[in-house]
């Protein structure tokens, strides 16, 4: 079997380029002296205790131990940083753990089985929801695409999945919740899902199947023959912990850097600085944000500080949200990978429809809020 030199056009995508992953091959299997449920309970109790204590602690450190004045630029910035860093990191650990456990119930194969017999409309909704909980990495986009299409999942439904999987991101959700509150986080979740559903449905209506590379339909039909993993409760908790080690271990420097930027803005930057050209009144700021965002690629943890900076200086929420979605939802590396199975016409339609969806969301929020 020939293995040609690595396809030159496939660059490692940040979600997969995790050099720290699996570097401790010699680690012995963890022994469990206590039942997993007890350990989990203790862990959650410790988490709750830590979460309760950080705000008084941050206040005491900033205004007591460091002696900074309440209401001063430096005092506000330091207090913000000392409170938000542990808060966001704690939230991140909890959510990533939870998502890791949920994801242990879903595999690409299982998701495919759920989607296989579904009609379009229902299928689009399910695909978008499953896109959030199914473990996904951009470098698996092509095998996943082929796997879906060959069992008869409609093209539009498959695309709903491929839009939702990167765009609705648990790290972004946590950071938005931690920094801007649950309303902004919920808006992000709902609009991300809506774009995935509507864009996938629209693309399905456009009957673009002829723009899928022909060889995709010719590839094999054999059922994979590997054993299913039997996880059990302990196994799922371990999956959650693995997710925490992998994801939090990777993004924490970004998070701290982001909060530091946010703290600076919180303490020093006058409000409304950007309002004149990124505020609600400037209708063109949304398309501009999308145009700038699409070619950019960053992980969710890296983009939130920018969103925070934009919002903090007076940019409208819709504009900032559109920018964030364009950056993490539509990325050049993923498009390059998908080019292997999709002809340029279909790629163009994909990018066009998703970008339009993001644009509409941006305008909607600028108009409504």
């Amino acid at each position, binding site marked *: *079997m*020939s*293995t*040609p030199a*690595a*396809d030159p056009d*496939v660059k*490692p*995508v940040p979600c*997969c*380029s*995790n*050099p720290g*992953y*699996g570097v*401790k*091959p*010699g*680690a012995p*299997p963890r022994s469990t002296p206590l039942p997993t449920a007890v350990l989990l309970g203790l862990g959650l109790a410790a988490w709750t205790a830590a979460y309760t204590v950080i705000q008084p602690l941050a206040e005491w450190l900033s205004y007591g131990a460091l002696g900074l004045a309440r209401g001063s630029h430096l005092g506000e910035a330091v207090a913000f940083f000392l409170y938000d860093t542990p808060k966001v990191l704690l939230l991140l650990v909890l959510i990533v753990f939870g998502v890791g456990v949920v994801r242990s119930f879903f*595999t*690409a*194969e299982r998701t*495919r089985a759920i989607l296989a017999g579904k009609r379009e409309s229902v299928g689009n909704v399910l695909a978008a929801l499953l896109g959030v909980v199914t*473990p*996904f*990495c951009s*470098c*698996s986009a*092509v*095998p*996943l695409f*082929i*796997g*879906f299409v060959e069992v008869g999942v409609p093209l539009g439904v498959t695309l709903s999945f491929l839009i939702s999987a990167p765009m609705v991101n648990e790290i972004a959700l946590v950071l938005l919740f931690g920094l801007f509150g649950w309303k902004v986080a919920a808006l992000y979740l709902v609009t991300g899902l809506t774009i995935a559903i509507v864009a996938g449905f629209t693309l399905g209506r456009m009957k673009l199947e002829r723009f899928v590379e022909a*060889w995709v339909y010719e*590839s*094999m039909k*054999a*059922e*994979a*023959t*590997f*054993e299913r993993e039997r996880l059990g409760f302990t196994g799922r908790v371990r999956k959650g912990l693995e997710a925490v080690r992998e994801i939090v271990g990777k993004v924490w420097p970004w998070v701290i850097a982001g909060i530091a930027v946010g703290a600076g803005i919180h303490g020093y930057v006058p409000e409304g600085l950007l309002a004149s050209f990124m505020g609600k009144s400037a209708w063109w700021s949304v398309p501009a944000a999308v145009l700038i965002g699409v070619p950019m690629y960053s992980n969710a943890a890296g983009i939130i500080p920018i969103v925070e900076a934009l919002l903090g200086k007076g940019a409208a929420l819709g504009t900032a949200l559109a920018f964030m979605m364009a950056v993490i939802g539509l990325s050049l590396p993923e498009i390059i*990978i998908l080019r*292997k199975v999709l002809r340029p016409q279909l790629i163009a339609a994909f990018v066009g429809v998703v970008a339009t969806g993001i644009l509409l969301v941006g305008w909607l929020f600028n108009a409504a809020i």
Partner: protein
Amino acid sequence: MKIQVLGTGCAKCKQLTANAERAVAELGLAVAVEKVEDIREIMKFSVMSTPALVVDGKVRSVGKVLAPEDVKKLLRA
């Protein structure tokens, strides 16, 4: 015995290849770990997430980086 790692060349695939090579070395087996990077070849194994580990033509693991210990278990079985 034939050992193949399926993956289009991302960091996780490289890590799995390295772990598989280490497992092979520790077991003292005289087999090379073959990397399958062509997407059409990968699709012949019906996998939907990479990296995947194939032993003697059978897919044994998909979508994760097995530690060398886990690869050893698969090779012994």
